[in-house]
């Protein structure tokens, strides 16, 4: 950093929400032509910092300078105009509009006062190409695109605004490995073009690959700033959580679990997404689903949970054929299944409703006597869950939307644990949550398995699969390509089978680089 004149500087920025301080005299310097990584647990103040830069929230005190001149932004539009563009963790795309409409949305090209659709199309195509996503049709509606494609549109949209400072907040959390590689190329090119990039991610290997400089936030302050690569992963994590950090994954049991499969699938097929899948999960076992994103893992979980229509093949519960036609049937006591969904904000929680209400939803039939909810029993169960999962909340009667991401995810999990499920399906449950909460979730998963639950766990994070699972099934194009057991679950094996490459030697390096 020394010598270079910072393009953008924040000094002594503080922000409080009610009594909670989100930022406390935080400083940050951003230099043109470099990638600056921001690290920290959820709730460390990263989001507030970015929102301040992007004009979404106004700081209580402190000053910001751009090119040496003091600036303040009244709205996201003002920040955009100054050249600061942010790709938010929560997608900012308008679902009913087309990809092209979305890309030019903040400043559409105009002719005679109307939007020039030809020019718009051209800008959109250029931006998509620049983001390495020319496979997306500019006319497609955003709501019809899968999450990973939307994220690419989001990046294209940011690029179309010709930013000087580009902020990426967990921008790769929904991306497939192939897309991440493309995005990295784009980001490195932008750095060479002289842009300043701020990169926020929970994935350490991404930061190691990309960043020039890192700043760690904790409790609303910047606690350390250092050139990338000068600290080990362990040192960085210790800086983030502020305490000794060891054994993120709980130990796996040595003894083989019981022999009876609780959940079994035979020749499961659905539309063109699932192809002849057979698998079994025993009580006490954690079985991972691996592979590139979008190879049918989500559909497989939804199929078990009774969401898909026109499913072919057989699902067996305790060795007996079962027909599960709805989530209600799946969570029935005879089946005892629970699904922790991918998107906690839409499929997991009713955000404006209270923590208490959200916790009870899945278990209302168990808590009700003759249709009336037994408040005392509800309270007991909720207290148990809040204690078991160490959910940090200011109270049970505040909207669940006010909780941090990690705590929201805990509420989603707790909500299903209230039913004491025997079969637990998890769909990428640690996406975009902090290290501390992740660790708690890993431990909880093992605890549940030890107590006799059968767990099917899909994750896009290979480390998690390696650390948590007794077995991993790797999916490719809707079918199980490979089963890895015990010590065979390695990053190399996972990547190779995810890309459907046979053999473990020379081909592997190719795979790991992609």
């Amino acid at each position, binding site marked *: 950093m020394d010598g270079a004149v910072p393009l953008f500087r924040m000094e002594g920025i503080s922000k409080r929400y009610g009594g909670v301080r989100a930022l406390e005299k935080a400083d940050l310097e951003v230099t043109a032509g470099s990638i600056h990584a921001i690290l920290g647990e959820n709730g460390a103040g990263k989001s507030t910092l970015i929102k301040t830069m992007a004009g979404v929230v106004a700081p209580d005190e402190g000053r910001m300078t751009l090119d040496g001149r003091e600036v303040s932004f009244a709205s*996201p539009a003002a920040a955009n105009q100054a050249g600061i563009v942010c790709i938010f963790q929560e997608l900012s795309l*308008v679902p009913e*509009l087309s990809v092209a*409409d*979305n890309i030019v949305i903040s400043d559409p090209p105009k002719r005679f006062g109307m*939007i020039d659709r030809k020019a718009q199309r051209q800008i959109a195509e250029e931006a998509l190409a620049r983001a390495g996503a020319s496979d997306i049709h500019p006319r497609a509606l955003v709501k019809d695109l899968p999450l990973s494609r939307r994220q690419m549109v989001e990046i294209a949209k940011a690029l179309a605004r010709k930013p000087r400072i580009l902020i990426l907040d967990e921008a790769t959390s929904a991306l497939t490995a192939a897309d991440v590689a493309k995005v990295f190329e784009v980001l490195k090119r932008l750095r060479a073009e002289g842009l300043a990039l701020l990169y926020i991610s929970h994935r350490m290997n991404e930061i190691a690959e990309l960043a020039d400089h890192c700043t760690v936030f904790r409790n609303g302050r910047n606690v350390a700033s250092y050139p990338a690569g000068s600290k080990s992963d362990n040192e960085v994590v210790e800086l983030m959580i502020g305490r000794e950090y060891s054994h993120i994954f709980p130990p796996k049991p040595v003894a083989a679990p019981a022999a009876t499969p609780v959940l079994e699938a035979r020749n499961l097929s659905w539309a063109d997404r699932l192809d002849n899948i057979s698998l079994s999960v025993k009580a006490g076992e954690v079985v991972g689903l691996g592979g590139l994103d979008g190879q049918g893992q989500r559909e497989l979980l*939804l199929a078990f949970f009774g969401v898909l229509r026109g499913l072919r093949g057989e699902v067996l519960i305790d060795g007996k054929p079962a027909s599960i036609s709805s989530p209600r049937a799946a969570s029935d006591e005879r089946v005892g299944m629970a699904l922790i969904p991918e998107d906690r904000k839409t499929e997991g929680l009713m955000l404006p409703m209270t923590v208490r209400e959200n916790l009870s939803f899945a278990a209302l039939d168990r808590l009700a006597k003759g249709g009336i909810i037994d408040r005392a029993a509800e309270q007991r169960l909720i207290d148990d869950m809040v204690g078991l999962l160490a959910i940090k909340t200011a109270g049970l009667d505040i909207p669940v939307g006010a909780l941090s991401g990690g705590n929201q995810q805990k509420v989603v999990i707790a909500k299903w644990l209230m039913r004491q499920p025997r079969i637990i399906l998890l769909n990428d449950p640690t996406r975009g949550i902090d290290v501390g909460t992740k660790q708690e979730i890993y431990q909880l998963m093992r605890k549940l398995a030890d107590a006799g639950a059968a767990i099917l766990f899909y994750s896009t994070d290979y480390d998690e699969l390696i650390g948590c699972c007794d077995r991993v099934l790797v999916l490719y194009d809707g079918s199980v390509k490979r089963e890895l057991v015990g010590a065979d679950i390695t990053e190399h094996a996972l990547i190779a089978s995810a890309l459907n490459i046979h053999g473990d030697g020379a081909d592997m390096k190719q795979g790991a680089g992609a």
Partner: protein
Amino acid sequence: MKDWRYLLAEQRGALLALGIFIVMFIIYTTNHPAGFTANVVQTAANKGVLLAFVAMAQTLVVITAGIDLSVGMILLLTNCLASWLVVGTPLETTLGVIAVLAAGLVCGAINGAIVIYGRLQPIVATIATGAVYYGIGLLLRPFPGGSVNEDLADALTGKLFDVIPTSLVALLIVVLVVWVPFSRSEFGRAAYAAGSSETAAYMSGVPIRRGKFIAYALAGLLASVGGLFLTFFTYTGEAAYASGNAYTLFSIAAVVLGGVSLFGGKGSAIGAIFGALAFRTIGDLLFVFDFDPLWQPLFQGVILLIAVSLGAFALFRVRNRLEWFL
């Protein structure tokens, strides 16, 4: 996918409404004693465009994920106003027309200001303003009466070259002058964006407030065009409460029939126009089949239910149940 397939998907709602309308209209004309003649078309057009204007007005607001329960009352108010002002010499008549349209625009702007800057729920705000507009209309015309420049009225409700109903031409012009520029402007897009996801729109720096405000204001303007035409057809002004409410409710039905989503962000005024025409034809159908008038509302309701259900057929093809809720 090819471009045209996306285009087709975008216009699906409007095309479905057009299809429903054409089928109904063919059934209507083939069973009409006079058959498919210019006069039959003219009568049908004159009845249809009134609802079409109101449905267009409703569309603008529904796109922003709001609803305007005052459109029918703006129609009545401007009808009463026109029965006073649109009279006399050509100059006076012109000024009268301008005054009536301006009144509609102001009514719409008031709705917009209350909903957007006052942050009231659209449904409540427009029930209240609707009652106010009706009240003013009633003060203007306590009893049915008044008159209108009959030359202008006859010209706009007659036929062009003895074939084309002038009211349809007027509808087309309004579409070209109001709807097309709006839908292609930055504000039109802001209205769609706000209706689809207001937070995403805000985060993207979209001028949400102006977009919504213009949508409400133009809705008032379009309702007043409807009010003008009502005066041209009837030569009088009348603050008929039941008729105002009927227009409001029918406009919502027409909008849904035309493929406009009540959740906002989706649909077009073109679809709503066909929805309105189809809705009107339902009423006419019962007439040509000589139904007992007592049965008409019941049958009209049933046919409307069937027509609206057509748009939901796609749900049978959904194989992932989560898509039901999108």
